[in-house]
């Protein structure tokens, strides 16, 4: 059943539409992650659902009920702010208990619940600690416990892992994912980090300038970006205009083989770095840079025609910068992307 429905949701600041006619549904127990660069309107989307930002047009429905006249404190949603916004004048326990106290939960059951939640987020016994004494990761856990405490029907997370360092981020993403599936929480998260989105979400929604550019499972989005924007936002650099006919595309790099059944005519072609093969009879290139990536090496190639190419190759035998190489394209790693 659909818990949250956005129906043509639009927010204008002056002339500019920050959220532009967004239609989005989130089913119960689903984890949806909105992915987009900063300024794409994703935080505003969360504020709209929380009731902190009024809509210029469209509707927000929670459990089928229009929320237009419902103030934030009666919507029963949770929002974890980007910088946590823990109350500085309350200790950890006071922060987590806040949502329970304002709902009139008795002290005894309040304390019990706070203790349980702190256990859940991995900070057992931290009730009396001052908020200022917490590290970034600990603050994030307290903010999560605080948001979970009133058992919101929808939990929203704004850049949940954004301010943490990389190791912690990866670990917490895994922890959050298993926590949400255990609790059956419905989650709407926003992030600019694709890794975070793919690790957390059942479904990913990519936003561009206030509009939805693509929605689908992480795998779908990764394998078949719906536009050049999505492809580039996911970090793919090898995108060029192309004219597709049958299983070949004419590109600035020369002919590139494409999978059977690809859309025909004026399109864009994306070649994943792993699909750029070195050696044999192909496009003549000069290696201009080489970046060590741990398990492999990323090469930047300057072809004799067309824009720079990114290629992935094994550690062993990777050519030096300045070396002359040839490049071929593997159709399995080529995607035809609609123009625009």
């Amino acid at each position, binding site marked *: 059943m659909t818990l949250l429905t956005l129906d043509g949701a639009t927010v204008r*600041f002056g002339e500019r539409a*920050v959220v532009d006619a967004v239609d989005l549904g989130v089913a119960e127990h689903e984890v949806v992650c909105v992915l987009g660069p*900063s*300024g794409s309107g994703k*935080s*505003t989307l969360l*504020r709209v659902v*929380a*009731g*902190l*930002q*009024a809509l210029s047009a469209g509707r927000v429905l929670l459990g089928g009920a229009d*929320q*237009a*006249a*419902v*103030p*934030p*404190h*009666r*919507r*029963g*949603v*949770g*929002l974890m*702010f*980007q*910088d946590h*916004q823990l*109350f*500085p*004048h309350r200790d950890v326990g006071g922060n987590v208990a*806040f*949502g329970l106290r*304002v*709902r009139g939960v008795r002290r005894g059951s309040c304390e019990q619940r706070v203790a349980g939640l702190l256990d859940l987020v991995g900070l057992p016994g931290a009730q009396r600690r001052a908020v200022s004494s917490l590290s970034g990761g600990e603050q994030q856990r307290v903010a999560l416990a*605080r*948001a979970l*405490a*009133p058992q919101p029907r929808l939990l929203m997370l704004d850049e949940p892992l954004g301010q943490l360092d990389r190791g912690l981020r990866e670990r917490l993403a895994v922890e959050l994912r298993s926590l949400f599936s255990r609790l059956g929480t419905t989650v709407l998260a926003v992030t600019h980090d694709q890794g975070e989105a793919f690790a957390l979400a059942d479904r990913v929604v990519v936003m561009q300038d206030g509009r939805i550019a693509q929605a689908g499972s992480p795998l779908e989005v990764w394998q078949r970006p719906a536009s050049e924007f999505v492809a580039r936002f996911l970090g793919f650099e090898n995108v060029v205009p192309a004219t597709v006919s049958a299983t070949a595309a004419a590109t600035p790099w020369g002919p590139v083989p494409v999978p059977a059944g690809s859309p025909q005519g004026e399109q864009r072609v994306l070649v994943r770095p792993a699909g750029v093969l070195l050696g044999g009879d192909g496009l003549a290139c000069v290696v201009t840079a080489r970046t060590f990536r741990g398990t492999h090496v990323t090469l930047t190639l300057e072809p004799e025609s067309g824009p720079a190419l990114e290629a992935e190759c094994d550690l062993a035998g990777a050519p030096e910068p300045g070396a002359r190489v040839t490049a071929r394209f593997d159709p399995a790693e080529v995607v035809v992307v609609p123009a625009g």
Partner: protein
Amino acid sequence: MDLARREVAGTGPKAGGAGPSLVRLGLMAVPLAFFGLFFAYPVAAIVGRGLRTDTGWQFGRIGEVVTRPDIADVLWFTTWQAVASTALTLVLALPAAYVFARLDFPGRQVLRAVVTVPFVLPTVVVGSAFLALVGRGGLLDELWGVRLDTTVWAILLAHVFFNYAVVVRTVGGLWAQLDPRQEEAARVLGAGRFAAWRRVTLPALAPAVGAATLMVFLFTFSSFGVVLILGGPAYATLEVEVYRQTAQLLDLPTAAVLTLVQFAAVGAILALHAWTLRRRERALKLVDPSRTAVRPHGAGQWALLGGVLLTVAVLIVAPLAVLVERSFDAPGGYGLAFYRALQDAAATGTFVVAPLEAVGNSLQYALAATAIALAIGGLAAAALARRAGPFLRGFDALLMLPLGVSAVTVGFGFLITLDEPPLDLRTSWILVPLAQALVGVPFVVRTMLPVLRAVDERLREAAAVLGAPPLRVWREVDLPLVRRAVLIAAGFAFAVSLGEFGATVFIARADRPTLPVAVARLLGRAGELNYGQAMALSTILMLVCAVSLLLLERLRSDKTSGEF
């Protein structure tokens, strides 16, 4: 980040709630009514009475009065002494701002409290303290036969004494929070020590220096008690002249014109001040002040520290010490003779009651005035806390007006306007606290506003999303965060109410004088006993102020200090 902020700032009306501007206007109604009734109305009445005759408004009088040679002299003196006082204050206090902000030395906290004492001292006490130091029979007179009380120097030095803390606190408070790493970044980029200071620190400080300069100019331009006591017949500021014209010469038209002139000048200064304040709101990278101070090292820093300590000793500690010394220096040797005389109404014939009763009167009045100022100022600050449109910004400046508009005019205005039903307050004790609250409100607003504005809107939003209705949000988020600021505001309002002189001198009843009024009356009489009693009473007043300040100092941290 920048974008996110703008989005928050641009947040429209909350879903489901009435427009916040309506709530804001509601909060504003009480302060507006208060200022209308007890400030605008009395002042307008005085001006009207001066400029209006049976044949209509006489605006020609304005030109006539300001071109009179004696009035032109007053205008000229008011302006140049304010400029000179401000410049002298800056020269002496800016090094101190640096020393208190950036150098860590034993006794720094105590010393910072000491330099703030003069600011909350009643002008009358400042006047008598300087009289005791440089006046006839004063310490310098006894030691070297030097008297400054007939020269302008006494006024200038008293003004420095009075305003030293304004510069030290406003500039030093910001200086302490500037991230030293910014200057270090400039040094690494190749700037010399001075160039780094000039290009990084100075621009960051400039708005604070500008604001402090304008505040000092405002206080010295409208100076009353200090000039009245130290100026003698030779020197008069506009405010003193208004008092003379009103109370002694009964020349209301001239007083009205002078009030208008001062009103215009103060309005201009406040407009400038509001402008610099807005510039100050530009984001600076601020850090915890306790992290920026270092132990002095190098001859230059030690010399600076020594110079500042010497200035504080000579300029601030000495006058206060001499004041206390004089209060014990009775004809029969050191003792409590002057203090004992305060208990006796008949001792001098100056009072219908014992001068010591003024202590009780003052405390009662000041407490009432503090309560009024907190209520009015608190409401105004709450209304102004959210980002305001041009209308409310104007209101912000309006709240500052009582600091600069002739208190004498306000006092006299009270007498002629609040004397008929339904507002016949002439015989009511509330009249004095009402006038004192007028000067207390700006301090309350200025102390609470920055703290309220610093409360992150998203903290309130976090509370709302967690299920707290608007009033609960205010109680759970705003109130705990501003509690300290409220106490500090109360302390300031109490201190300035205690010291208010210009308005109180008109409206305090003869049998219920306040401390400053009693001191002024004693100083106005000849005779050693009167002089000694004035010193004793000033000492008591100073102690009351200093104690309330020290209590404040315990509550204050520079982070939440607001403007003063």
